[in-house]
């Protein structure tokens, strides 16, 4: 594009300005009302550090699980035609629109002590509810759909003739996937991974319902924020800022590097 840009119509400008303010004000509230003096003490508190560590561990675990199982699922949805495909796709995206609390209740009914699979898992010594593994599972449920739909769209947009060209050059399935499909899919996979991770980091409803709120094992940062808000609001603000900083750093930094904005 060369030459001068056209000025947007006034009505559009007003609308866009209000929307921008709407996003800016809460952020300003957090930053202005933060008790910066007590910040070091609040952040260094064992509970805060535990929650931060758990949040990072759980969100990255959930992302890893989502990649491990979500990519094959996206593959099947994008590349194979079978009866019930649309139903399966709707099912996969359901957690995106479902209130997370409902997801947590559903997880309890599936993996809880008296749930569908609970007794079977208990028999082999696996207890998911109210454990860190449970928190990871809850985050995976709500976050994986973001990865699946992004990767599926990426697979659909991928020109499969490159894969044909690779086959005529002697590439077997695995070599083809590693050297052609995966690199061509990388931007979608990365974008999906970031979205998935961000959603997992912020997850609250399903986690607190299915995994509870135990410091060190299931109390992630969002849960800690909620808890502290009742007793020590200043600490809640600082923890919120930590969440904000981590999210922003990852989203802005990596998106620009990988997707070239």
């Amino acid at each position: 594009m060369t030459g001068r840009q056209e000025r947007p119509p006034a009505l559009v400008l007003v609308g866009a300005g209000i929307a921008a303010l709407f996003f800016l004000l809460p952020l300003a509230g957090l930053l202005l009302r933060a008790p910066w003096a007590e910040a070091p003490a609040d952040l260094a508190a064992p509970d805060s550090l535990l929650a931060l560590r758990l949040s990072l561990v759980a969100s990255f675990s959930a992302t890893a699980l989502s990649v491990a199982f979500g990519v094959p699922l996206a593959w099947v949805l994008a590349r194979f035609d079978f009866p019930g495909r649309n139903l399966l796709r709707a099912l996969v995206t359901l957690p995106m629109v479902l209130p997370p609390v409902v997801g947590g209740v559903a997880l309890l009914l599936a993996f809880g002590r008296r749930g569908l699979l609970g007794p079977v898992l208990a028999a082999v010594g696996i207890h998911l509810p109210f454990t860190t593994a449970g928190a990871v599972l809850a985050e995976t449920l709500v976050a994986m759909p973001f990865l699946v739909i992004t990767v599926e769209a990426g697979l659909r947009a991928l020109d499969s003739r490159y894969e044909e060209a690779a086959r005529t050059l002697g590439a077997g399935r695995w070599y083809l996937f590693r050297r052609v499909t995966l690199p061509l899919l990388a931007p979608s996979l990365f974008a999906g991974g970031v979205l998935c991770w961000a959603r997992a980091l912020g997850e609250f409803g399903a986690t607190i319902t299915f995994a509870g709120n135990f410091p060190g094992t299931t109390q992630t940062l969002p849960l800690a924020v909620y808890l502290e808000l009742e007793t020590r609001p200043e600490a809640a603000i600082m923890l919120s800022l930590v969440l904000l900083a981590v999210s922003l750093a990852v989203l802005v930094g990596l998106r620009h590097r990988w997707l070239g904005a």
Partner: protein
Amino acid sequence: MIRADVGLRLGTLDLQVELEVGDDEVVAVLGPNGAGKTTLLRALAGLLPLDRGRVELDGRLLEDVALGIRVAPERRGCGVVFQDYLLFPHLSALENVAFGLRSRGADRRGALAAAAEWLRRFGLEGFEESRPAALSGGQAQRVALARAMAPDPKLLLLDEPLSALDASTRAQVRRDLVRHLSAFRGTRVLVTHDPLEAAALAGRLLVVEQGRLVQSGTPAEVTARPRSRYVADLVGVNLLRGHASGGTVVLSGGGSVAVADPLEGEVFAVIHPRAVALHRRHPEGTPRNVWRGEAASLESLGDRARVRVEGPFPLVAEVTAASVAELKLAAGGPVWASVKATEVSVYPA
């Protein structure tokens, strides 16, 4: 050499083509868009399964529907140059050429060294690290050719190898392509809709229309005796078909043509547009063929013009610009077209 009997349906296309190509020739499959050329090529490469038939390359059975045998494309040993090259956008030119060597298990260092040698042979020294997006059309074409040839395939398939290039580079790339094709030891088949490209690159043409092989032969043979409307239009002659008997060809679509050839039976008759004379009144003299028609359309070719005459059958006449003015052909209206019997060439259908 390749021996193939290809039968497959794809959408509205019903492809049924038999071909045999030796290693001492370059064969071009020529046909209009949608004739099934690319489908044929993809079937030979194994990218489309046959519904019927078999493919045999250098005596090795690649596919036989009746026997239930089908060798996967990655095991066929076919090099393919795709229409828009399909160079891997995330790999450098060098890695693109090395791809087929490494996929067959060559070690990285050896494959890259061999690929560098291929790039040098194709005049692409200094472009080793270039991504495909940074290459010109001609360079990308050479990388694609080097990539297809590097793994030493038995069969080289080229799909419209010059169509992605602009006219200014096409002639040069075509010369290079002729050279590289002649250096290739193996079977060479290319597909094109451009008769000039076909004649420049190949010694034998296979004309395919609507999924069927309609004619084969050297470019000279094919153009001298067109066997389809498509080829006749490419050459720019009037092609008629009918039954010859006693010096007259009765056309299947109505009308008849007097000929000098004593051939009998089903024939093609070709009339060059320059052999057709136009008149506003019934011509005097001896021409054996005179038809009455309407001057339907006029196409100017500088000092000459092509006039389409709708008579007992459609006929194109090529006349001088002077006669167009003299006969006021631009206005259309009734005309008489005459052709000497000796100007009609006839050959068996």
